[in-house]
């Protein structure tokens, strides 16, 4: 169905090759999962399938690509519209119309479908994606998961032979992501469309994947288990399976539970010694009865919170439960309609917002760092050296907008850390980060905690929380519903449990590292 022959892509602005000599073939009707570390060219490869790369991005592509037996080199993306359906990361950025029905019909209007045919297909698509009750709704009023389902529906309406999904859930919270991925897996079974998907929540898709395409120094394709065993990025249970040499390699929790049955029984008889949370330092920030009230909504309804030095606290809860409002209220730059926030004497608070790029406005990374030095009254170069410590490979002459999400976050973090804050608040720093970028973030957080700073991060990512945080606060409808050590909160919850915790339940082992430590 899709055949790449020696495809190499290089962008015009740099000599670096984004994709080197990719040669592979994806048969018809398969679900192919694309994996690889950040910057390995996953998005480039997906864009090549419908010629968005290089038609929209610029650059040079060599080699040949055949879709459905047709060489696509000279075709515009629009001419491939009926062959390849493409869904990007941010559904809202791709919407052309404003209501669900019109969005579903848009492609067909462009391609000149008859009115009756169009109506039939819109109705079918509404049912296929389970969005029939949303048909008249304005797109902006939908939740993220619903928006992404509409986006998938809008390309499926013209029944393309190939569906390309580029990280369709990276901007969604876990529940919405679940919704979208469940839909995708159902489509694969029902429609037999060839699907190529890049997804950082791999564990949700590998079950259904027929093959895995690993993008890196070389591009290779093969059966899921074989390729994942050699992949540098893999979900926790697969990682555990590889390290313990389980055979066959488990892909789902059920398979892994079977493989670990003996270990579980042994732990039930003699509970393993699990590390206890470190005792907290002195309180650096005390908040009492914090209330944030918007005209239509009570965002934070009386929250008490004490942050201690050296502590890393996770703030969890579904989208819109008041996490961001609480962070902004704690910092003082946001709205606070009641309660008190008392930093310990002289303690400074820094906040990294959800879209760090909002704070970057200069032409180069070096200039941003220099501006950071100037406002904080530091010796020139302090911020830059701090940034080098966070991400050693960053290019000071690069434009901040050209950086990856993880690097942008690091730049803003460096600028904020230059003021030597005692409390660092991070609003969803894991958005758009993949496994390796998250590992870097975890190291940065650990380093900040070791310096005695107190860190509070709002996140949906349980694996990161299990790895990096010692305390978890869960919010719902503006109130704190649970607050305790990470192990108690995560392992005791059905929704927040990590993959390893689900595997070892009822013994509360949270991460692969812990499992390997105590199993030894």
């Amino acid at each position, binding site marked *: 169905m899709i055949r790449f022959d020696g495809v190499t892509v290089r962008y015009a602005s740099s000599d670096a090759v984004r994709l080197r000599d990719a040669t592979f073939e994806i048969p018809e009707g398969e679900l192919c999962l694309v994996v690889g570390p950040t910057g390995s060219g996953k998005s480039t490869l997906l864009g090549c399938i419908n010629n968005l790369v290089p038609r*929209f991005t610029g650059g040079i592509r060599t080699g040949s690509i055949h879709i459905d037996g047709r060489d696509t080199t000279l075709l515009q993306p629009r*001419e491939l519209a009926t062959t390849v359906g493409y869904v*990007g990361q941010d559904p809202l950025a791709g919407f052309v119309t404003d209501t669900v029905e*019109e969005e579903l019909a848009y492609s067909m209007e*462009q391609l000149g479908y008859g009115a009756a045919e*169009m109506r039939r297909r819109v109705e079918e698509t509404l049912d296929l994606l389970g969005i029939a009750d949303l048909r008249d709704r304005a797109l*902006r009023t939908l939740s993220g998961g619903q928006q992404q389902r509409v986006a998938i529906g809008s390309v499926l309406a013209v029944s393309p032979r190939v569906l390309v999904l580029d990280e369709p859930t990276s901007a969604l919270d876990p529940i919405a992501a679940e919704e979208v991925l469940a839909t995708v897996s159902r489509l694969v079974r029902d429609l037999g469309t060839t699907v190529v998907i890049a997804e950082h929540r791999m564990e949700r898709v590998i079950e259904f994947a027929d093959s895995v395409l690993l993008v890196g120094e070389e591009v290779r394709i093969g059966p899921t288990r074989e390729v994942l065993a050699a992949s540098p990025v893999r979900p926790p249970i697969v990682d555990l399976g590889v390290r313990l040499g389980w055979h066959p390699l488990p892909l789902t929790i059920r398979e892994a539970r079977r493989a670990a049955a003996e270990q579980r029984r042994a732990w039930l008889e003699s509970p393993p010694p699990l590390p206890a949370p470190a005792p907290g330092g002195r309180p650096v920030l005390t908040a009492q009865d914090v209330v944030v009230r918007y005209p239509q909504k009570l965002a934070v309804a009386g929250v008490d919170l004490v942050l201690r030095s050296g502590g890393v606290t996770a703030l969890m809860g579904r989208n819109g439960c008041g996490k961001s409002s609480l962070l902004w209220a704690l910092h003082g730059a946001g709205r606070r309609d009641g309660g008190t926030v008392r930093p310990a004497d002289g303690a400074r608070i820094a*906040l990294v917002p959800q879209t760090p790029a909002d704070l970057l406005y200069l032409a180069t990374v070096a200039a941003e760092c220099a501006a950071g030095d100037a406002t904080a009254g530091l010796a020139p170069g302090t911020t830059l050296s701090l940034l080098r410590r966070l991400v050693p490979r960053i290019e000071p002459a690069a434009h901040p907008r050209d950086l990856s999400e993880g690097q942008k976050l690091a730049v803003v973090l460096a600028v904020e850390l230059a003021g030597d804050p005692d409390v660092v608040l991070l609003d969803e720093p894991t958005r758009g980060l993949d496994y390796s970028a998250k590992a870097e973030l975890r190291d940065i957080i650990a380093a900040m905690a070791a310096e005695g700073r107190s860190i509070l991060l709002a996140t949906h990512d349980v694996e990161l929380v299990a790895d990096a945080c010692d305390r978890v606060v869960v919010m719902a409808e503006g109130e704190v519903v649970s607050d305790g050590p990470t192990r108690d909160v995560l392992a005791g919850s059905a929704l927040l449990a990590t993959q390893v915790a689900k595997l070892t339940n009822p013994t509360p082992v949270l991460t692969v590292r812990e499992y390997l430590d105590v199993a030894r």
Partner: protein
Amino acid sequence: MLRSALPRPLHPFAWWGYAIGLAVAASSTTNPLLLAGLIGAAIVVAMSRRGSNPWAKSFALYLWLAVFIVVLRVGFRILFGGGDGPTILLTLPEMPLPSWVRGIRLLGPVSLEAVLAGLYDGLRLATIVVCIGAANSLANPKKLLASLPAALYELGTIMVVAVSALPQLGESLQRVVRARRLRRGSAARSRRDRLRAVETIIVPVLSDALERSLALAASMDVRGYGRSGSGGRRRTLALGLGAIGLLTVWAFRFLAGSPDVRLAGVPIVSVALAAAGLGCGVAALRVAGRSVRRTQYRPIRWRWPETLTVLCGATAVLLVTAVAEPTVVFPAISPFAWPSLTGPLLLALAAAVLPATLTPPPSMSKVAP
């Protein structure tokens, strides 16, 4: 029940036809009773047949605009006078003005005639505004643009994109302004610092908007936008330029009052120029439209309620302009005569209010609750 009378949106052209009819009727009368009646009819129709869309809610704005127009007109007459008559209602202390503003009077005697002239005039403009407002809230603007010739399709696309881009721009502005408070900036001391503060907001907002528009362009392309062939572009251009040229010459001759060859009272050269220009324009739209192969999702078909609605508007115009006596349509101000409504005008008002019941209701929940 007839299928065409089932709940459905009416064709936007029908609503505009009806509303323009009402507006024309209003513009050719100063009878305050008739004007008030027309406003009432427009309100009744708009309230009973508008949908639940955002543009439907704009009607209240037009009503306030109408009130403002009337108040302004009457207020100006009281303040500055003009059209004064012998019937003095009250005398306000006149403000002395310097001699070089001769001809303008501030306050002073207020005559009934001046106030009435202002009221009638204001009411007429207000009625036209209310009619346009009614059309705007009754007809779906997106369907209206989609019903235009295919060559004007791009206009519709631009409007829809702009409408969805504006709130996004507002959101990102809000976000950036909020985020800016995080970078402990030095307080604005000099003008340069203040400029810098503006830069810190504008640069992220604009680069955000730019990124978004690139993403949108890619998304539109991926979904087949602009796939149709670009054939006939040169012919379209030639015909379009021809139309503009011919119409310009015609307009110049018309405005300059150039002598014309008349045959049976018809100015031949002018008519020929206008017809040729319009013909070229239509042909250009046709040719451009033929190269665009797009279709419309759920097009609204023209059925008998549409025809009836337009007929109602036309009837109102006909009755007011041709049938009713001029003395009733333009009631005298000086000497003052009470305005009245005669048979034809009452019929016109009845025709104006009929679409409220003749047309199908806009929509209803088709599923049992």
